[in-house]
């Protein structure tokens, strides 16, 4: 092995060792990271969050920002219910249905009045928020956990909006509707338990 190949390998090992040892998951950082990863590591959450942004962008202004603003606010309400222990029936079903319904709305180019779209998004946000909120009290740092999952959720919305901006082009509209169909199928899979 030459020094030329040794250098990148050494740097890689150096980075690997440092990262593995530095983050023990304790303290505020652990709470934030745990909350941040909660919506991102759950495919049902990912599908629904991306669908919110995608649908908002597909519907155009003002839905492009109203839906991503509505979602975290109502999600926080659902999360508060979860924190204080108020039971909400069918949490997992609601989360799976959110991907199915919003995926179908995108795939079929369904354009309801803005209020109706906001109500649909808000309704499903309660289920997502409750799922996050239930785990909040047991987090390393509950406040950092809440910040993490709100930011994580928001970034997934932004990912959906970014993709949804392709709706400016004819081919982009087809791509978005295709992605909506994929999200709807995933939602169906979550709902039936096949995914």
């Amino acid at each position, binding site marked *: 092995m030459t*020094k030329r190949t040794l250098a990148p390998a*050494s740097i890689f090992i150096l980075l690997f060792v440092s990262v593995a040892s530095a983050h023990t998951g304790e303290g*505020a950082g652990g709470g*934030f990271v745990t909350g941040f990863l909660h919506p991102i590591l759950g495919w049902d959450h990912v599908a629904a969050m991306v669908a919110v942004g995608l649908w908002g962008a597909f519907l155009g202004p003002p839905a492009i920002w109203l839906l991503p*603003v509505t979602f*975290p606010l109502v999600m926080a309400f659902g999360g508060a219910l979860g924190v204080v222990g108020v039971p909400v029936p069918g949490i997992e079903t609601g989360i799976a249905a959110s991907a199915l319904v919003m995926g179908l709305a995108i795939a079929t180019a369904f354009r309801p009045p803005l209020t109706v779209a906001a109500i649909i998004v808000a309704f499903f946000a309660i289920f997502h928020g409750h799922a996050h909120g239930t785990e909040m009290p047991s987090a390393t740092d509950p406040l950092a956990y809440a*910040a993490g999952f*709100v930011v994580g959720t928001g970034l997934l919305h932004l990912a959906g909006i970014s993709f949804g901006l392709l709706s400016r082009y004819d081919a982009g509209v087809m791509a978005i509707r295709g992605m909506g169909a994929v999200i709807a199928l995933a939602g169906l899979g979550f709902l039936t338990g096949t995914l």
Partner: protein
Amino acid sequence: MTYRSLAPLAGLLAVSPDVALGHDAFGDLGPFYGALLHPLADPTQGLIVAAIAVLLARQPIASVRWAWIALAIVGALTVGLGLLVPLAGPGLFVIALSAAGLGILALTGSDLGLWPSIVLSVGAAVLAGLAVDLPDGTRAAALAAFGGMVGISLGALLVWGLVDLLQTRFGRVAGAVVGSWIAAIGTMAIAFSIVAT
């Protein structure tokens, strides 16, 4: 630096990770930097600083200039008062309620005017100042107090700048989105503070 000189150095660091993990770079100024970075380490202080910064980012620059000066002065005075008199830190409920309120105000994006902006900044500065932990020992406490003063004003300035930049690039809606995030975090924290007590 060439590969030739980098390879032995990287190899040495790779087999001795303790060198990298020690992180005693702060040395004698540890209390200063600890307090300076406190908004990043303490979510309650970070939340209230971020909340007022986002609100100010939604206000006209003419209001922001005076409100930020008021925030810096009152934050410094509050931290300084903590050097003289032991002060109790703000409870999570108060911080959460304040952050949720500031987040909702930021979400609306309405122009509050100069004096309401200043009053809200002063209130946030007091809460942020009370959240600074001052260690025992005169020198350490003085260093931490100075770091806390800088941390509050600098933290608010940085977040304000970031949100202002986002609004310049993506429109004022970017500030509304961040405001909704602050309101959401505050709401969740209110619920938790109720359960925790």
